[in-house]
C-alpha cells in the first residue's frame, strides 16, 4: 500500500480566517459611510482627492517594492486605506498633486522606509497630511462649503470650519451652530472631518468586528471631554463646551481611524488607555492654546512617538514561575 502523503505541522491546525487584507478591506468598508456622507453634503467633488491619494499611495508602494526587490503587497489594501483616509482630509478644491504628494510621502517615509505594513511607528495618513499641510499652508487652508441646498450661505456665520470660527471669532459665535449640523456634517470642512455620525457608524463597525481596540477611542473621546469639561466649568467665556469639541472637526475620525492605525498603537490594555487619554488631552491642549485649527493630527503624531514607551508598562502574566534549578 502506498502511504498517503500527510501534512505535518504543529498545533493549532485551524485558523480564524483573519488576514491582513481582510483587516484592511473591512476598514475600507468602515470608511464607506464617511465617503458617502461626504458625497451627500459636498457633492462628487470629494472623490477627486481620494482618487489621487489612492493613486499616489498604491503607485508609491508598487514602485518602491519593485525597486528594492520585495514582493508587492499592494493587494493587502493598506495603501488603499491610507489613500482614502488622506483623501478625506483634503479639500476637493486643492490642486490634484497635493493629495498625490501627501500619499506618496505617507506611504514611503513612515511605512516602507521602516519595513512595510505594520512597521510604521507613525501614522501613514498623518505624516503624509502633515507634510503637505506644513509645506503648502495657504493651499491647504481651504475648505468646501456644504451644498447650498442644506441651508448654508456664503457670508453666513459658518464660512469656515467650526473650529476656525472658534479660533477667530470666539466662543459666542459657535453657540449659534446647531448640534444637529455638527452631528450630520452640515458644516464646512473636509469630508472626513465633518460628519460625526458617518464616522461613528464606521468606527462602530470596526469596534464590533474587533478590528480596533475599544480602549483607544473611548479613552480618546473621554479624555478630551473630561479635560475640556474642567476648563469649560472654570471659564465658559474663554473655553468652548466639551460637547462642541467632541462633535467637531477631526475628533471622531482621529479616535476611531487615525489613532488606531496598526503599528502606531500600543498593544496592551493599560498603555492603550493611556495612549488614548494622551491623544485626547493633547488634542484639547492644541485646540485651546495652539496655533493650529485642529489638534488631532499633531496630538496623534506626538502620541505615536510615545506609544512604544507606553507599551513598556508590563502586563502582569497570570501564573507564577518556579525557580529553575
Amino acid at each position: 500500500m502506498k502511504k498517503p502523503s500527510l501534512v505535518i505541522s504543529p498545533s493549532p491546525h485551524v485558523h480564524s480566517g483573519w488576514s491582513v487584507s481582510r483587516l484592511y478591506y473591512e476598514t475600507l468598508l468602515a470608511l464607506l459611510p464617511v465617503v458617502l456622507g461626504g458625497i451627500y453634503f459636498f457633492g462628487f467633488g470629494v472623490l477627486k482627492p481620494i482618487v489621487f491619494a489612492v493613486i499616489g499611495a498604491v503607485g508609491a508602494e508598487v514602485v518602491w517594492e519593485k525597486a528594492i526587490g520585495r514582493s508587492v503587497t499592494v493587494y493587502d489594501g493598506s495603501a488603499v486605506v491610507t489613500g482614502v483616509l488622506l483623501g478625506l482630509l483634503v479639500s476637493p478644491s486643492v490642486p490634484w498633486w497635493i493629495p498625490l504628494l501627501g500619499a506618496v510621502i505617507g506611504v514611503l517615509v513612515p511605512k516602507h522606509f521602516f519595513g512595510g505594513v505594520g512597521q510604521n511607528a507613525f501614522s501613514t495618513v498623518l505624516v503624509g497630511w502633515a507634510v503637505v499641510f506644513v509645506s503648502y499652508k495657504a493651499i491647504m487652508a481651504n475648505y468646501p462649503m456644504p451644498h447650498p441646498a442644506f441651508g448654508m450661505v456664503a457670508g453666513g456665520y459658518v464660512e469656515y470650519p467650526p473650529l476656525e470660527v472658534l479660533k477667530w471669532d470666539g466662543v459666542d459665535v459657535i453657540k449659534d451652530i446647531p448640534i444637529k449640523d455638527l452631528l450630520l456634517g452640515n458644516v464646512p470642512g473636509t469630508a472626513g472631518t465633518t460628519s460625526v455620525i458617518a464616522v461613528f457608524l464606521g468606527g462602530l463597525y470596526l469596534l464590533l468586528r474587533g478590528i480596533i481596540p475599544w480602549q483607544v477611542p473611548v479613552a480618546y473621546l473621554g479624555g478630551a471631554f473630561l479635560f475640556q469639561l474642567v476648563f469649560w466649568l472654570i471659564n465658559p467665556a474663554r473655553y468652548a463646551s466639551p460637547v462642541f469639541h467632541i462633535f467637531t472637526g477631526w475628533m471622531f475620525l482621529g479616535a476611531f481611524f487615525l489613532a488606531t492605525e496598526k503599528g502606531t498603537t500600543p498593544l496592551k490594555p493599560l498603555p492603550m488607555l493611556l495612549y488614548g487619554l494622551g491623544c485626547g488631552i493633547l488634542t484639547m491642549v492644541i485646540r485651546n492654546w495652539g496655533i493650529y485649527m485642529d489638534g488631532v493630527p499633531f496630538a496623534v503624531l506626538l502620541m505615536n512617538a510615545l506609544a512604544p514607551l507606553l507599551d513598556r508598562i508590563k502586563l502582569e502574566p497570570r501564573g507564577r514561575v518556579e525557580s529553575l534549578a
Partner: protein
Amino acid sequence: MKTIKVAKGLSFPVRQPALAVRKVSPPRRLVYPTGNRWGWLYPEVKEGDAVGAGQVIASSSLPYVPSLKTAISGTVREIIKLPTLQLREGQAIVIEAAEDVSSVSQSVSIGEDASPVEVFKAIMDAGIWEVDDYALPLHLRVAAPEVIEEYIKESGESEFVESLRNIPYRDRAIETLIVNALDRQPQSWVRSHIFASDSDRIVAGVRLLQRLSGAKQTIVAVPSHLADSESTKKVMDALKAEVAVSNGKYPASLEPILILALTGKEMVFPSKNSRECGVAVVDVMALEQLVKAVLESNEDREVTVQVNLSGRREYHLLKCPVGTPVLHIIDHLALNPDSLTKVVLGGDFLGYAHYDLDVPITGEVDVLSLWDTEIFHYKHDPCIRCGFCVRVCPMNLVPAEISMCCEYNRFEEAVGKGIYQCIECGLCSYVCPSHRPMVQLIRHGKQELERAREVS
C-alpha cells in the same frame, strides 16, 4: 451555581450536532505505543508471546509513567518503530487478536469501600492515560500526602519508591478536587457527552478520588448546555458538590485556567504541578476509564473518541478499544486513506499531526480530526502589531513579542516576557491576521530553553 469566568480567551458559537455513539467493529490488530507524555515504558513481552486481555505489556521503573495494558487477547505480532502521540520517536507493540488465549487480568479490583491506599494502588495499576497535559498522572496528582507516605512505608525500599519520594510537592494536601466536564476545545464534545450519558460512573469515580485525596471541596465544571441537565442534578445531589458553569469560552477547560477561575489560585510554571496549590483536576474521560478498570474490572479498555471530518463538517462519536490504529477507524468510516491530507490526534487546537496511520487511539486522544481538503499553512509574515493576540491570550501575555524573541533566538528575553506561563492554547496563532506561527515559535523557544538547561 457558579459561573466560570475566563478573562480574555475567545467565545466559540456552540452548535453541538446530535451525535449518536457507535461502536467500531473490533479491530484484529492493535498498536500500543511504549511512551506517553510522562515518559517511556519498557516492553515486558517479546515477539510471538501470547498475551491475555488486561495483561501489562509495558511498564516503567518510574512511578509517574502509567503502565500499558492490552485490551484484547492475542499474540505479540511485532514491535515496530512508531512515534508517540507527542511525536517522539519510539516503539510500539503490535498485538494480533487470537481466540485461544484467555484473558489474564492483572488489575487490582477494589470495592467502593476500599481504603485510600488500596485506591491508590488500584489506580496506579490500572494504567490510566489522560488527555490533558498534566504534570503528574492521576494517582500522584490526586493522592493525599498521607496516602503516598503510607504506600511508601508499605512497599519497602526500591528504586521505584525512591523516585516516589522525589515527586515534587508530594507533601502538599489536596484541598480542592475539580471534576472537569468541559469540552477541551472547540469542535469537541466528548467530555460533555460522557458527562451526560455516564453520570453513574462519574459519581462512583469522584467518590473514590474524594477518599483518595481527602479533599474538602469538590467542584464540578460543566458546559452551559448541560447546566440544567439530569446528570448535573444527579452529580450535584450524589456528591454534594458545587457546580460551576462555563460561559463557553475557550480555553476554560485547560487546567491552569480552570484552577484560576474556580479557586483563584495561580499555578506554577513551567512544571504546571497542581499539587503546589493544593488542587487536583480530573476530567470525566479519565473518571470513566478509572471506574471501568478499578471498580468494574472491565478490561475492554474502551474509550470514546470523536472523529471530525474537518473539511466536510461531519462529526462522529465512536467507541473503540485503546490501541485501535487510526487506519482502522478510517476504514470503518469508509474513507479513502489516500485522499487524506492531514490527520490530527487530539483536536484542532491542541492536537498533533501524524504521518503514520498506525498511530493508535489511546487514553491520550479525545478527538481525531481528518482533513481531505486544502490545509491551512502558517507563514513567517511580519507582525503588523494589531494586538489581536494580546486581546485573546488567557494568560495575559503579549504573544507577539514572545514569539518574536523566539524567532530571533533571544530565548532568555522571552523568559522575562513570560514564555513559561504560556499554556499553548493556540489562540494567538488562531487569530493572527499575519498568519504568524506564534504558539509554534513559543513552543520552539521552550524546547530550546529546556535543552539549554539540560546542557548546563
